[in-house]
């Protein structure tokens, strides 16, 4: 069958992503239901928003009744890094004829890290392989979210405290950035500005002032040897 070799290769390559997406998706589904939303919203958000960290943040924004502008800016901040995945895949994706729109829509951190390392075997059809990896990855995420949502609704388990999974996710991201980055100032600026904003404006209004302070300080240190 046409494309079956590409799909097989994609299935093998995406095994590590499957593990991560199923587990984190499951956590997302459980958390969403624990916050009082129907299980079905988890896979729907996985289909249409499809952004791991942002979906977790979104639960909080929903629960806190955040305004639309605040939501838009927060989404931009959390997902801005995806701009650069697109930039580095520009030429590769321009050569793909079928399904390019979906490839661009579904370019998450994990999918990018698989695809940016190039074709794993010679003679593969790049477009089909990219589509296989992208669709399988989103499939795992949707499935994880669905199962988590259903489990959250069905299991008579006290999930109180499950929301710490989101804190833990971002702590791991921060620790990882801290260990890998040559320049730790951006991470320190993020922490410092958010803390300052929390103290000045309180827990309900910390996002927007923090983002403004972060942008100003990042642009200020730019050109002063800033290398992330």
């Amino acid at each position, binding site marked *: 069958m046409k494309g079956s070799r590409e799909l097989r290769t994609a299935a093998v390559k995406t095994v590590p992503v499957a593990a991560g997406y199923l587990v984190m998706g499951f956590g997302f589904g459980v958390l969403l239901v624990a916050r009082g939303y129907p299980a079905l919203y988890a896979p729907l958000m996985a289909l249409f928003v499809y952004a791991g960290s942002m979906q977790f943040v979104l639960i909080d924004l929903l629960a806190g009744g955040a305004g639309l502008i605040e939501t838009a800016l927060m989404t931009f901040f959390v*997902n801005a890094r995806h701009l650069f995945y697109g930039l580095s895949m520009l030429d590769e994706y321009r050569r793909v004829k079928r399904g390019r729109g979906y490839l661009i829509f579904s370019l998450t951190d994990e999918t990018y890290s698989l695809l940016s390392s190039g074709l794993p075997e010679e003679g593969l059809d790049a477009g089909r392989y990219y589509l296989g990896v992208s669709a399988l990855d989103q499939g795992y995420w949707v499935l994880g979210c669905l199962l988590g949502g259903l489990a959250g609704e069905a299991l008579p388990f006290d999930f109180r405290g499950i929301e710490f999974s989101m804190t833990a996710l971002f702590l791991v991201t921060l620790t990882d950035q801290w260990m890998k980055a040559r320049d730790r100032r951006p991470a320190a600026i993020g922490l410092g500005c958010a803390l300052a904003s929390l103290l000045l404006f309180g827990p309900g209004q910390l996002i927007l002032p923090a983002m403004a302070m972060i942008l100003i300080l990042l642009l200020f240190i730019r050109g002063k040897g800033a290398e992330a």
Partner: protein
Amino acid sequence: MNAHELLTVLVAALVTAAIRFAPFALFPPGRKTPAAVEYLGRALPGAVAGLLVVYCLRGLHFGALSGWLPEALSAALVVISYRLIRNSLLSIAAGTVCYMLLLRLVV
């Protein structure tokens, strides 16, 4: 889900998609990416991680042990275990289970 919540999800979906499509719309072949855009791309992820950690912990209060101790111990477990073992799923699971247990123990 009420109308405002639906709109909130919609906005998040649209902005996410717009970010992913922007490079293909804004930078036709051969055009160079502005240096400021590249710089923010490198610097923002670290800053956002810091912001999100504070955002998640914004509800801490120091009037009672239960207002900060479960969070502090679980956060320490996440950071230390990740530095030692470098497995993100393991650290997230350990921290979450630790927090859920502490919530029920520290009153």
